[in-house]
């Protein structure tokens, strides 16, 4: 039997969570006051967890590396949050959301966790509305929904293109209430650099005060890591500049297994890169695919003319355009899941049809939508013989009301008017489904150490559906951890305060300061960014949207080389005992350089295509699905959880076999 115990409750899936809550241990209110919990990360998962735990009575210490919890990168999520409310009466249900999520994840997630996620999703919306989150509403005053890729119902709640911001500010306000009461002690501009394990249990962390550079010890009865994903291992991604894997990687090195690192979501609708100086990529919400049609020219001559600036895309007639998603996937069209849309874009660009100078861009065109909405609006206004110009004007106004902020954002970056000329988009790294392995209680393989939100691996399998990340972060933080942690903490009521002068704390702090001194003393010749960019190139070229054995082997080799070079030649100016942004980056990149190798190793071992992980060796041959990704359920229907042994090369694989009792495994077909 595997060493991994998912602790999935027994019984029918629809009763598991309720039964589990009914039978787990609970800490009485008086005892909660003497229990400390550390929450690292203040995004949706961390912020919601910190607030909820403090409300319950635990003493919470929360940490974030930004200057305020409100900056966490959850804030950048645009499109929306899913919830099985069935407000639109289109047949949505907990089961359907569960089914869509498992299917969308290409059958690589744990059924029980996903079902629970779907089950609590409705509570999230109630909770957020009670907090004052201003979701979009209809004229009758009730909540509005939109539809998102990969599903057939409208279950996405949204606040224009700023849903993540509004939800995060909701969690932040809940935190503020507890900070004001003294129930949460907030540590801004602090970075967790190690977890301290005493007698096999997580007992605290070592954090660096980023302003003074001082290392601090913080003891607690449990540690929650909710520090987001590791997409920045690619250097260029839609993640924030500071998003990093360090906290997650540190707990991994102390005994928490890292699951499915190769599952990365490449989001299809991002603004293409414009030059080598590019520092990050900007996402355009997937909701745009509701109204935008994706195409490239049919003829290579047109592609060349467009690239040379001799032709404008608006000059191409309908027959000269290849709406390749509509052509390949008539059932879902432009609304296929993200991984499918991204690969299709790559396929066209690799075939030479990319429409910008770098050859890495496709069009997202709103012309049809503008005309359609314009005609509708003209009818509503009673303008029966509206001119074409008038229709375009009315239609543009509708589009503006729906996506105005996104269009403005695009125009500011690209300097082109997307109402007049189609947007250019290209896939970019966006989300990492992989992460720290957790059981049903969200506990890692270190007792007392939990992982939540994007930092864990649990709910999205090999591909995440749009508007599900916000749902998972808040579910973990508001509705899962506050219950499941009690089960563990009930045994801690007699422990008393955690002393931070133990030899384990001494040792952990010494290790951290040793690493920092080592980095500072390299005094090499190249900047941290130099190495990060090198790593990013290898990751994108060999471990990106399409992967093969040869490339993955090479990648591991190359990443090792970059890592060795980094530890010999990185230059970090300044001092360690002060605010030092280069040192902060160096610590994070050092971890990415290890994680990247494990990532490639995991991708190599998983010789199947599933979700965001596409192996060129594993595709359907012949038939209607020819060329599509081919999953191998016989050999790979498991979670790959890696145990750290001192070097990514020797990391040990543990498998958690996935059981599907409530869903039949099928090939995902969006045809």
């Amino acid at each position, binding site marked *: 039997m595997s060493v991994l115990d998912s602790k999935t409750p027994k019984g029918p899936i629809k009763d598991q969570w309720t039964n589990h809550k009914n039978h787990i241990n609970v800490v009485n209110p008086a005892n909660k006051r003497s229990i400390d919990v550390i929450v690292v990360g203040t995004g949706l998962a961390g912020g919601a967890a910190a607030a909820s735990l403090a409300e319950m009575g635990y003493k919470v210490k929360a940490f974030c590396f930004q200057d305020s919890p409100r900056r*966490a990168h959850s804030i950048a999520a645009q499109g929306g949050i899913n919830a099985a409310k069935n407000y639109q009466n289109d047949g949505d249900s907990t089961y359907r959301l569960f089914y869509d999520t498992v299917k969308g994840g290409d059958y690589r997630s744990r059924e029980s966790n996903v079902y629970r996620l779907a089950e609590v999703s409705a509570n999230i919306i109630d909770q957020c509305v009670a907090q004052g989150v201003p979701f979009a509403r209809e004229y009758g005053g009730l909540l509005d929904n939109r539809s998102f890729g990969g599903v057939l119902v409208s279950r996405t709640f949204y*606040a224009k293109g700023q849903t993540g911001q509004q939800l995060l500010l909701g969690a932040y306000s809940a935190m503020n209430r507890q900070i004001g009461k003294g129930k949460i002690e907030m540590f801004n501009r602090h970075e967790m650099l190690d977890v301290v394990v005493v007698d096999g249990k997580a007992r605290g962390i070592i954090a660096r005060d980023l302003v003074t550079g001082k290392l601090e010890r913080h003891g607690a009865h449990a540690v929650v890591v909710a520090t987001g994903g590791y997409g920045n291992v690619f250097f260029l991604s839609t993640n924030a500049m500071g998003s990093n894997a360090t906290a997650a990687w540190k707990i991994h090195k102390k005994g928490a297994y890292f699951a499915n690192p190769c599952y990365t979501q490449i989001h299809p609708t991002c603004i293409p890169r414009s030059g080598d100086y590019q520092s990050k990529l900007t996402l355009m919400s997937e909701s745009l695919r509701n109204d935008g049609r994706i195409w490239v020219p049919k003829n290579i001559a047109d592609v060349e003319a467009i690239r040379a600036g001799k032709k404008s895309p608006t000059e191409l007639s309908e027959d000269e355009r290849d709406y390749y998603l509509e052509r390949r996937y008539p059932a879902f069209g432009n609304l296929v899941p993200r991984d499918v849309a991204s690969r299709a874009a790559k396929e066209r660009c690799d075939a030479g049809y990319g429409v910008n100078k770098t050859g890495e861009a496709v069009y997202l065109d709103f012309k049809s939508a503008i005309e359609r909405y314009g005609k509708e609006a003209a009818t509503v206004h009673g303008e029966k013989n509206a001119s074409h110009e008038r229709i375009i004007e009315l239609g543009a106004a509708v589009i503006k009301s729906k996506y105005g902020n996104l269009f403005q954002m695009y125009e*500011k970056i690209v300097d082109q008017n997307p109402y007049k000329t189609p947007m250019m988009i290209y896939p970019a790294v966006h989300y990492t489904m992989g992460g720290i392995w957790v059981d049903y209680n969200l506990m890692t393989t270190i007792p007392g150490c939990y992982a939540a939100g994007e930092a864990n691996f649990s709910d999205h399998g090999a591909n995440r559906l749009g508007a599900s990340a916000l749902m998972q972060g808040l579910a973990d933080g508001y509705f899962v951890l506050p219950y499941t942690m009690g089960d563990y903490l009930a045994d801690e009521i007699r422990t008393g305060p955690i002393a931070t002068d133990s030899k384990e704390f001494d040792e952990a702090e010494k290790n951290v300061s040793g690493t920092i001194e080592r980095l500072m003393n390299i005094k090499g010749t190249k900047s941290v960014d130099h190495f990060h960019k090198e790593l990013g190139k290898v990751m994108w070229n060999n471990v990106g949207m399409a992967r093969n054995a040869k490339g993955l082997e090479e990648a591991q080799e190359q990443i090792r080389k970059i890592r060795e070079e980094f530890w010999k030649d990185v*230059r970090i100016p300044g001092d360690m005992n002060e605010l030092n942004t280069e040192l902060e980056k160096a610590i994070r990149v050092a971890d990415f350089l290890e994680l990247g190798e494990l990532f490639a190793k995991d991708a190599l071992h998983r010789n199947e295509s599933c979700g965001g992980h596409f192996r060129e060796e594993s595709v359907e041959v012949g038939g209607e699905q020819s060329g599509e990704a081919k999953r191998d359920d016989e050999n790979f229907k498991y979670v790959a959880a890696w145990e750290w042994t001192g070097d990514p090369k020797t990391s040990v694989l543990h498998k958690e076999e996935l059981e599907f009792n409530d869903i039949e495994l099928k090939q995902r077909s969006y045809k």
Partner: protein
Amino acid sequence: MSELGMNLTLKIWRQKDAKAKGKMETYKVTEISEHMSFLEMLDVLNEQLINTGQEPVAFDHDCREGICGMCSLYINGEAHGPDRGVTTCQLHMRMFYNNDTIYIEPFRAKAFPVVKDLIVDRSSFDRIQHAGGFISVNTSGNTQDANSLPIPKLDADKAFDAATCIGCGACVATCKNASAMLYVSAKVSQFALLPQGKIEAKDRVLNMVEQMDKEGFGNCTNTGACEVECPKGISLENIARMNSEYLKASLVREK
């Protein structure tokens, strides 16, 4: 502009730490593409400084897509620079010309002390939120159904508009009085417009304003500069709403 891009002179505030005395330093950067964002231009400068053994310029930034509110900077005499409706990370170099001299300073206010170079401490903003920027509901799986409380679309939309504040502090940096009224009023307004928020509206506005005054922000004299420079276009209407909420709350407050 040549194919190679722009050559620029940068005058940047350098200050080692909170206690040190800072000063403006001059730097040159070359071959800056017009498609770069302003922060990417600073990345180029920093790479150049690191490669010549100097300390890079410290500045706050994170999401680089205009939503986290972490980036700041007073560029050529304006918060977030000369463009409108953008944060510094969304400001593009096409707003500048070859051979320009660009002044880059931290946001200045007594309540925003400089931490290092261009980084300032905006924790005063957080403390104002701790004083009342919330609705007192606990996390619960038993909250009433979200649709049991219809909210007029106009109110919901206005609450949303106020709630889009990113807490960057441009309003304070711009205001001649370093007043935080736009920031505080955005939160007060958001909740005052929603039925959920009305229950605690009086305490909220009184407590938040009291904390704002304690932090050392200046008073509002309605110049309207904040609204112009706000990257999210938060309206002055919110300040008026807060003023009226505050007046009402002050008049009926008990004790």
